[in-house]
């Protein structure tokens, strides 16, 4: 393909090498660590939520010492619950599910997998990370300010989010910081997306035709396209929301509002639905930004550990593209009950069900990949199989939620919470885990402990099913989401036992993540040394030492002769053929 870009010299000095580094591998690890911090924070926030939901009136004297305002009088206040909920959602969606699989793994492995020595714009890449970090710091700052973190949820529907403190605690400074942080995040993601697209199109090694790219690369490439077109819309929405709050404009605030008995006379003519359209025009592609890289990783890992070519490679590529494209046409399915025209609901319903077709194709292809394989249940493979199971579990409920008529009873209930946690949250996290167990040896030169990995898997898969399956039942029974407790309603009070069960399951599952954390830290120093290709994989990152040198390929110019998933090729000497293996040798 194109000429290799001029490679920058290895940086000298600790700061240039590890802090303000332009090396895509260091940046990838930086993103990964940022996501790791965020996921820990997000989990801690969810502990608070689960405490309140299971034991709403319980007093927590110890926590009261630490958070006198959040636990005024002993029990957790509903506004504290809502601020935990908002921050949990926001941090998980933006700083974990968007950051780890795309910016983390993508940064590290996209260039190596296509045979490039770095990203197309290394300095831009460094900037993307530091801008993301600033965004995270601003978001975390929202937890500290007086009035607390915002309570408007990760969707921050206007006018609740636009009116300021009068509409509720945390909607003053906390909400302002939230909007600023998201706006900064949009900029960072835009830069990342540009870099990914350019790199994929221009820096592929000789022989790395588009249809020889691993499915991970296809997934990152498509995700970058989604990010490129989705984040600007959120950025625009965020700026307009900010203007409504501080600039006296009325994009989202209609006239004649009376909030907390105070007439809002400064605004007129805005539309609350406009915010929802802008948010979900970003928000739905965002779901796929979170899950597509997981699909790519799962395809890659399933093929590797079944020792079989991925089934229907071209169909997989087409499916990724189809999902990406259709994801732009479905945003209205979040708004079936919003007062939007019932005619558009019908159109959005059909497009939403249509996105199920490529998703189903992927599932069939994964199953067909397993069929006739020689499955090795490594920790990475376990998580990839878990991904498939979760993708199915979370996907089928989409068939219900895609229909506006079924959304009448189910919209904004726990059924939706179950659906998106399983398919967007947990499945994507399983993709991240599969990637971590698979690539850790390449990134750090040492193996993760497989036994601990398997224990981690069992706790996690059993835990997430125990947490999220019962939420379907809560939803069917009519429990609305974002309630600080269910017991204020008579028809919901009998469901409290389920809430307690879910909380206990959540605590166990969260505790089990410490196994992973321990394994991760311990293996960095003490793990078994990894060779260049411990899993007998085929893609280019396994042709170089672990960890790879500064410019990835050293003196050797990588040349590609094969597709990415040549496992169990008849008559080949090994049960896998590396992408870079010259054709002659196989025949000979």
């Amino acid at each position, binding site marked *: 393909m194109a000429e290799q870009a001029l490679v920058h010299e290895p940086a000298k000095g600790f700061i240039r090498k590890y802090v303000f580094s332009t090396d895509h591998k260091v940046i990838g690890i930086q993103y990964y660590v940022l996501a790791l911090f965020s996921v820990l924070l997000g989990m801690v926030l969810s502990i608070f939520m689960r405490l309140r939901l299971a034991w709403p009136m319980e007093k927590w004297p110890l926590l009261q010492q630490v958070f006198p305002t959040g636990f005024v009088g002993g029990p957790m206040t*509903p506004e504290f619950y*809502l601020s935990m909920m908002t921050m949990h959602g926001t941090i998980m969606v933006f700083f974990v599910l968007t950051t780890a699989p795309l910016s983390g793994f993508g940064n590290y492995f996209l260039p190596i997998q296509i045979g490039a020595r770095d990203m197309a714009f290394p300095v831009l890449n460094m900037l993307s990370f530091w801008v993301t970090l600033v965004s995270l710091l601003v978001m975390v700052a929202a937890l500290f300010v007086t009035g607390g973190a915002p309570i408007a949820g990760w969707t921050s*529907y206007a006018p*609740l989010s636009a*009116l300021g403190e009068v509409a*509720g605690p945390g909607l003053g400074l906390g909400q302002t910081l939230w909007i600023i942080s998201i706006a900064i995040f949009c900029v960072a993601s835009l830069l990342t997306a540009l870099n990914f697209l350019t790199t994929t199109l221009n820096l592929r090694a000789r022989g790395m035709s588009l249809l020889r790219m691993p499915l991970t690369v296809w997934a990152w490439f498509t995700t970058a396209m989604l990010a490129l077109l989705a984040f600007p819309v959120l950025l625009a929405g965020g700026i307009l929301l900010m203007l409504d709050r501080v600039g006296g404009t009325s994009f989202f605030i209609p*006239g*004649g*509002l*009376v909030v907390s*008995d105070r*007439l809002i006379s400064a605004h007129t003519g805005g539309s*609350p*639905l406009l915010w929802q359209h802008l948010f979900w025009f970003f928000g739905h592609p965002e779901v796929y930004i979170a899950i597509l890289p997981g699909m790519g990783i799962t395809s890659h890992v399933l093929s590797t550990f079944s*020792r*079989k070519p991925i089934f*229907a490679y*071209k169909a997989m590529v087409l499916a990724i593209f189809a999902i990406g494209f259709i994801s732009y046409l479905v945003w209205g399915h979040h708004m079936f*009950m919003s*007062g939007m025209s019932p005619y558009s*609901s019908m159109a959005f*319903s059909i497009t939403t*069900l*249509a996105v*199920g*077709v490529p998703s189903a*194709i992927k599932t069939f292809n994964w*199953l*067909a990949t397993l*069929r006739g394989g*020689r499955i*090795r249940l490594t920790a990475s493979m376990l998580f990839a199989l878990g991904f498939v*199971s979760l993708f*199915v*579990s979370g996907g089928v409920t989409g*068939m*219900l939620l*895609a*229909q*506006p*008529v079924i*959304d*009448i*009873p*189910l919209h*904004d*209930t726990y059924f939706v919470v179950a659906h998106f946690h399983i398919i967007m949250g947990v499945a994507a996290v399983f993709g991240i885990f599969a990637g971590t167990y698979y690539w850790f040896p390449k990134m750090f030169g040492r193996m993760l402990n497989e036994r601990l990995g398997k224990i981690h898997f069992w706790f996690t898969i059993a835990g997430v099913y125990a947490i999220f*399956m019962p939420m*379907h*039942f809560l939803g*069917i*029974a*009519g429990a609305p989401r974002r309630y*600080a*407790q*269910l017991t204020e*309603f008579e*028809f919901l009070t009998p469901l409290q036992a389920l809430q307690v069960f879910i909380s206990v399951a959540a605590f166990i599952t969260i505790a089990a993540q410490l196994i992973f954390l321990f394994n991760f830290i311990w293996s960095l120093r003490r793990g078994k040394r990894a060779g260049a290709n411990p899993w007998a994989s085929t893609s280019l990152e396994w042709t170089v030492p672990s960890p790879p040198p500064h410019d990835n390929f050293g003196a050797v110019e990588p040349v590609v002769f094969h597709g990415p998933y040549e496992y*169990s090729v008849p008559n080949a000497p090994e*049960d896998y053929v590396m992408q870079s293996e010259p054709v002659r040798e196989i025949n000979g």
Partner: protein
Amino acid sequence: MALLLGLFFWLVAIVTVGIFVARVWWLPDLASMEGALIDRQLTMTLIIAGVVFFLAQIGLGYFIWRYRARGTERATYWHESPKLEAAWTIATAVIFIGLGVRGNVVWANYFMSGTPPDAVTIEITAQQFAWNVRYPGPDGKFGRTNPALIDDALANYLGLDPKDTAGRDDIVTQNIMVVPIMRPVRLMLRSKDVTHSFFVPQFRLKQDAVPGMAIQVHFTATKAGEYEIACAELCGMQHYKMRGRLMAMPQPEYEDWLKKRAAL
């Protein structure tokens, strides 16, 4: 391990489907006319989704066990099968789009049929954190309101303009709503401050109340009794407590109640 994992996915499939089939937790008992079609569509989709879910998990579990690594034989070198791919693509497309079309028919019946002419009109104005309910009174007309006149402390929650004679007989209640059974009710949903959502699970009724908009929905209660109105759109700190009581009663009792309320 392969056997264990296979069995685990089987277990997930069986337990989940079992709980749904046994209806351990299920939709609240239906109490509206329009809800019957919704429930049918929901149940049908749930069955299809359940079958897909069950087969996929069982298949996944079986494959993991059946194709576990053993012996020395290599895996099958199997790249693609255009026929198979075409078959399942068409099958899923037909099922999904078919479901969508059917669902849309039910939706269209509900939302585009228009409210029957003998419907009772009730206005709901949501606020943080209460449901204000207004009946037009004997003249059938709602009086003019003005946001500048709203004063909760004087119990003028809607800002009724005293100069408008049409409003003199309006009946305004807070968090208490009474509807007749077996007669269509048209709701006009409004909001004073932020977006709320009017949700009565037994009626299969949910619709956002959006500030700046007046959204109409209709329903026909079939069973007398007391129900709860829940808010289903995050509206602030006490969202979880935004509860209204809804009493459905036969027409004569409903009229008595209105009269008694008007006398207050």
